[in-house]
């Protein structure tokens, strides 16, 4: 929501508050009236608009910078050559712009936050649940992973190009609010306005707004589904009519949009949108990943263990965040280094909260009555018969494409080492 409003503010010159409410209203209308089907349908349409509108920025940017080699030289002169490396500077906290080391990236971001996002974020899970068969369900995250590796072309590359070709230096959001300068969050709309004239600018703005709207609509519809089907119906009113649940879903959509508006203002308190998102992931996604993994793979896990593990994991992460907020020097204890910076805090918070969640879940589960196997069938991996994708050609098998994606992933990591 905040990112969408930022585009309107920078490119169209609209007031940020007006932009937030206009974009909210638009999403609220089409998700309330159309529900999950309209959200998914729009996501597919918006996917193509996003690429059609955003791909031109890296193409023209690389042309202006004189190619990838010249871009790297310019970044090295204006900032640091570490901006174009994935792993080379991660040997210590002081050798890279993020102020983090490889432990935080591999275990905090890679093993906890990323895997947690792919397995517990209901926006992702809901799309897979909507698949027509087991092969489609298995292919969905593989195709998603393939395109996810292309996203840096339209997200990270414009940021790097901005570092090289924009005449001004971007600053954190709080500094931007005080000085009127442009913040890190503004780089994509700034690059868009730099290269795109009439026609293209319209498509570019549409692409950015479509991307942010698609993400928000997906999250709001996921929120609505979880509340209506998983909480309201089983615990508050199990005998309502279909129309009653549809109405409940629509009202929940409105509430979800209003919460999004609130979070849009909350983001302004963080240095960048990335900082905000990673902090939230460390609060909720990381411990939830611990609960889900144990619940799926360990039949001895109990409901009490899951509840207390998740609660303690989230509280530990939030406590660390408050601790550093109150006393910034505490960051050296959370991230294990005096050279650590903000994003390192998020990664290590995620790591600690996952460990706390798993430890508490195991201890409480072992101290409480186990669930009988009969009640765990269909919930725990070892007690569930997983359907086969059938007898398919090699190129039709999800495992084959997972291997292809893995090879590309490794090659990209080596190229951009």
């Amino acid at each position, binding site marked *: 929501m905040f990112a969408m409003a930022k585009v309107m503010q920078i490119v169209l010159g609209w007031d940020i508050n007006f932009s937030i409410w206009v974009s909210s209203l638009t999403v609220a209308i089409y998700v309330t009236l159309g529900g999950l089907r309209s959200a998914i349908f729009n996501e597919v349409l918006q996917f193509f608009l996003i690429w059609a509108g955003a791909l031109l920025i890296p193409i023209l940017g690389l042309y202006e910078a004189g190619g990838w080699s010249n871009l790297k030289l310019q970044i090295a002169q204006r900032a640091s050559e570490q901006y174009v490396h994935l792993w080379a500077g991660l040997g210590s906290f002081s050798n890279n712009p993020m102020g983090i080391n490889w432990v935080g990236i591999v275990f905090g971001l890679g093993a906890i936050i990323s895997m947690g996002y792919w397995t517990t974020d209901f926006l992702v899970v809901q799309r897979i649940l909507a698949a027509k068969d087991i092969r489609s369900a298995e292919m969905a995250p593989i195709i998603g992973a393939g395109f996810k590796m292309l996203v840096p072309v339209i997200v990270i590359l414009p940021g790097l190009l901005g570092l090289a070709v924009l005449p001004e230096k971007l600053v954190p959001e709080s500094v931007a609010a005080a000085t009127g300068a442009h913040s890190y969050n503004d780089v994509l709309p700034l690059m868009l306005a730099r*290269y795109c004239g009439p*026609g*293209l600018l319209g498509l570019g703005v549409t692409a950015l707004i479509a991307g942010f709207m698609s993400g928000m609509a997906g999250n709001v519809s996921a929120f609505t589904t979880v509340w209506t089907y998983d909480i309201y119906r089983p615990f508050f009113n199990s005998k309502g009519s279909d129309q009653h649940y549809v109405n409940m879903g629509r009202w929940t959509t409105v509430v979800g949009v209003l919460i999004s508006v609130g979070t849009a203002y909350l983001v302004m308190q963080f240095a960048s949108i990335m900082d905000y998102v990673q902090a939230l992931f460390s609060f909720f996604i990381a411990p939830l990943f611990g609960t889900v993994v144990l619940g799926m793979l360990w039949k001895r896990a109990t409901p009490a263990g899951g509840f207390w593990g998740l609660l303690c994991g989230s509280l530990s992460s939030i406590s660390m965040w408050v601790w550093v907020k109150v006393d910034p020097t505490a960051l050296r204890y959370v991230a294990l280094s005096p050279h650590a910076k903000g994003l390192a805090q998020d990664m290590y918070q995620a790591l600690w909260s996952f460990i706390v969640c798993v430890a508490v879940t195991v201890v409480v589960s072992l101290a409480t009555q186990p669930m009988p196997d009969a009640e765990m069938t269909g919930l725990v991996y070892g007690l569930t018969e997983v359907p086969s994708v059938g007898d398919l050609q090699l190129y039709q098998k999800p495992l084959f494409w997972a291997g292809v994606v893995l090879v590309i992933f490794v090659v990209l990591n080596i190229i951009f080492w």
Partner: protein
Amino acid sequence: MISIWFFIGISLAVNGALILAAGLYQLANPPANPGVVLFNLHANVWWGALLLVVGLVYCFKFAPTRQS
């Protein structure tokens, strides 16, 4: 049921046509101050044309008459 690819084709073709038209107009009547970097590349002409072609291919391939 009309394929979603058909709607994607329409979306790309309409956007492409509008961008191409704006690009051709600017090519014929170059503004004194283009306001963008690399205006000389006329990105809206070739990018608009590309979107239009891709969009028309999708529209044709997934047209409701062909699907039924």
